[in-house]
C-alpha cells in the first residue's frame, strides 16, 4: 500500500496541496478532474431543475409503488407498512437497549442520530416532493413518527422486559412476514388479490424478500453437503452449484416460466410470480452456498472435536458451535449475494412480471410521458442505490456487533 499523506495536523490548505498537487502530473490530473466534475455536476443540476419534467414520477407514484393493486384494498398495504414500521422501530430500539454483556450500552450512537435525521427528512420531504395528497403526506409522517417513538421507548425500557419474553422477540419478524403475505394476497376473511395485480416496488420487495429468506437456509444445507464425507451428498451439491453458476439467470427464469408447466401433472403449475420467486431462491442458494463454504473452511477442525468430546451430537454441534462461527466469516459475502438478489429482481421485467422496471416501462410507453426516460431511470437508480447501500451499511454494522473481540478502547 502506498504511504498515505501525513494526517490532519496540518491546515486544510496544506492538506489539499499534498493530496491534489503533490507533483506536476498530479496537479494536471487534479485540474482536469475538478473542471470536468464541476461541469458535469452543474450540467446535471441544470437539467434536473430546468429541463427535466418530474411530473411523470409524481403522477405515477402509486403505480410505481404498488402496481395495479386494487384501490379498495390498499388499506391492507397501509396496515402492513404501519406494522412493519412498528416492528422496525421496536427491533432497532431493543438492539440498542439490550447490549451485549461485555460492552457498554450506547443508546444513541452517532449513526443512529444520523439515521434519525435522515428518516425525518425523508418522511417530510419525500411525500411532499412527490406531490401526494395532504392526507397521504400526513400518513407518512405519522408512520415515521410511530417508528421513531417505538425506537425511543424500546431503547429506554428494554431492560425491564423479563428474560423469558426476550427469547420470543425474534419471532416477531417471521410472524409479521406471514401476516404480511396474508394481507397482500388475501385469506382469513380478506378478499383475494390475485398475484397478477401485484406490481411495482411491492412486487420487487416481495420477490426479493422471499428469495433472500429461503436461499439462506438452502445455501447453508448445500454448503454442508458440499463439505460432507458422504460421496452422494457431496457430488450432488457440487453438481447443483456448478450447474447454477454456469447458467445466466435469465435462462433459468425462462426455464421456470415456460417449462415448469410441463414438469407438473395436468395444468397444475404455480402462479408466474411464485415460479420466478422459486427460481430466484434456487439461483441465489448456490452462490450463498459458496460463501458459507468458505466460512465453514475457516472454522478450525478442533472446534468440532471439542464439541463432540463434550458429548454434543452432530446436529447440536453444528448449530451451536460450527455454524455461528462460519456464518460470521461468511457474512460479508452472503449479504453481497442478498444485494445482488435485490438487483436481480429487475430481470423479472424481461419475463413479463410487473416489477419496478416493468412498471417504469409501461409508464414511459404512455403517450403522455413519452421521452421522459431519463427522469424515470434516474429516480429508479437513486432508489436502488439507496436500498443497496443501506443493506451494505447494515451488513457492516452487523459484522461489528457480532465480533466477539471488540477493541479495548471502543
Amino acid at each position, binding site marked *: 500500500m502506498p504511504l498515505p499523506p501525513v494526517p490532519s495536523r496540518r491546515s486544510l490548505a496544506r492538506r489539499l496541496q499534498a493530496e491534489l498537487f503533490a507533483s506536476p502530473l498530479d496537479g494536471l490530473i487534479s485540474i482536469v478532474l475538478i473542471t470536468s466534475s464541476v461541469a458535469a455536476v452543474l450540467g446535471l443540476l441544470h437539467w434536473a431543475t430546468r429541463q427535466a419534467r418530474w411530473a411523470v414520477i409524481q403522477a405515477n407514484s402509486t403505480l410505481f409503488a404498488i402496481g395495479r393493486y386494487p384501490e379498495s384494498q390498499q388499506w391492507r398495504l397501509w396496515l402492513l407498512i404501519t406494522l412493519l414500521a412498528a416492528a422496525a422501530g421496536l427491533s432497532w430500539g431493543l438492539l440498542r437497549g439490550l447490549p451485549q454483556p461485555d460492552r457498554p450500552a450506547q443508546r444513541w450512537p452517532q449513526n443512529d442520530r444520523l439515521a434519525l435525521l435522515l428518516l425525518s427528512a425523508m418522511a417530510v420531504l419525500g411525500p411532499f416532493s412527490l406531490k401526494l395528497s395532504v392526507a397521504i403526506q400526513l400518513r407518512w409522517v405519522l408512520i415515521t413518527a410511530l417508528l421513531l417513538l417505538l425506537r425511543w421507548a424500546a431503547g429506554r425500557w428494554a431492560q425491564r422486559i423479563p428474560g423469558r419474553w426476550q427469547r420470543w422477540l425474534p419471532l416477531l419478524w417471521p410472524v409479521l412476514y406471514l401476516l404480511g403475505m396474508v394481507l397482500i394476497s388475501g385469506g382469513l376473511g380478506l378478499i383475494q388479490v390475485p398475484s397478477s395485480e401485484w406490481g411495482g416496488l411491492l412486487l420487487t420487495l416481495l420477490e426479493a424478500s422471499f428469495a433472500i429468506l429461503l436461499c439462506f437456509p438452502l445455501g447453508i444445507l448445500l454448503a454442508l453437503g458440499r463439505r460432507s464425507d458422504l460421496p452422494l451428498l457431496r457430488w450432488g451439491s457440487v453438481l447443483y452449484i456448478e450447474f447454477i453458476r454456469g447458467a445466466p439467470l435469465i435462462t433459468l427464469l425462462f426455464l421456470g416460466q415456460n417449462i415448469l408447466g410441463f414438469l407438473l401433472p395436468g395444468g397444475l403449475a404455480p402462479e408466474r410470480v411464485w415460479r420466478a420467486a422459486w427460481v430466484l431462491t434456487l439461483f441465489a442458494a448456490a452462490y450463498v452456498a459458496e460463501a458459507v463454504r468458505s466460512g465453514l473452511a475457516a472454522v478450525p477442525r478442533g472446534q468440532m472435536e*471439542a464439541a463432540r468430546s*463434550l*458429548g454434543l451430537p452432530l446436529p447440536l454441534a453444528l448449530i451451536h458451535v460450527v455454524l455461528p*462461527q462460519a456464518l460470521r466469516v461468511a457474512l460479508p459475502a452472503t449479504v453481497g449475494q442478498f444485494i445482488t438478489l435485490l438487483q436481480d429482481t429487475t430481470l423479472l421485467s424481461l419475463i413479463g412480471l410487473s416489477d419496478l422496471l416493468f412498471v417504469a416501462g409501461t409508464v414511459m410507453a404512455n403517450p403522455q410521458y413519452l421521452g421522459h426516460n431519463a427522469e424515470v431511470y434516474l429516480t429508479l437508480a437513486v432508489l436502488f442505490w439507496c436500498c443497496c447501500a443501506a443493506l451494505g451499511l447494515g451488513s457492516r454494522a452487523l459484522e461489528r456487533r457480532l465480533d466477539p*473481540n471488540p477493541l479495548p478502547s471502543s
Partner: protein
Amino acid sequence: MSIDPRLSKPAGDEAVMIEARGINKWYPNGYQALRGAELTVRRGEVVVIMGPSGSGKSTFLRTFNALEDFQEGSLKVGGLTLSNDLRQIDAIRREVGMVFQQFNLFPHLSVLENLTLAPVLVRGRQRAQVEEQARRLLERVGIGEQADKYPGQLSGGQQQRVAIARSLCMEPEILLFDEPTSALDPEMVREVLEVMQTLAADGMTMVVVTHEVRFARQVADRVVLMAEGQVLEEAPPERFFTNPSHERTRQFLSQIA
C-alpha cells in the same frame, strides 16, 4: 484446596475405567498408527503417556473418547464397550472429558457460556443451576473474574484453565489431556500443571499425554512409553525415570533429558 467437590463418589461395579486390548489402527493410506496397543486404567489413577513424536500416543488417547476409530481390538471405557452404537458413543463421551493442546474454546461464546453449553444441551440441566456450578469451577481454577469475558481476551494459560473447567462442568468420570501445555508460553505452563495436580489429588482419573517430566514424577501413578504405535513400557515414575527396563525407554529418556 480441592477443585471437584464430588470427591467421594461411590465406586461403581467397575474399578477399571479404561481397558484397551490389542488396538490396531490403519489410516486409509495404509500407514499403521497403532499396533496392538494395550492399557488398563483404574479409578483414581493418573497415567502419563510419553513417547517420541509420531509414536501414536495422541491417536491412542483419542480412541478413548471415540475421536479416532480403530479396525481391530477391544476397548471398554467406564464399563461401556466401544462399538458402532451411536448411543454408546454418546454415553461414553459424556463421561470422558478432553483437554486439547490448542484449547479449542468456542470463541463466539463467553467463558461462562463455554462452560454451560454442554450441560444444558446434553444433560438437560437448568441453566441457572449450571451457571452457578460453572462460576464455582472458574473460581477454583483461579479465574472466577473472567466469567463474562470472551476467550480471545484471555491469555493462553487462562484459556487452558477455562478448557479444563469446561470439561469438569460435565462432571466426567475420566479426564484425558492431549499435550495440554505444549502450546503455552513457558511462564504459563506452571499455572495449568498446578490445576492438573490439584485435580489428581481430588481423585480424578486422568490420562495425560505430555512431555513434562517433573509433572509425571510428582503426580503420575504410572508412566507409559509408546513408540511406533505400541505400548513398550509401563512403570511407576520412580522406576520409569531412574531404571527403565526397555532399551527404547532409555533412548527416549536420554533424548529429552
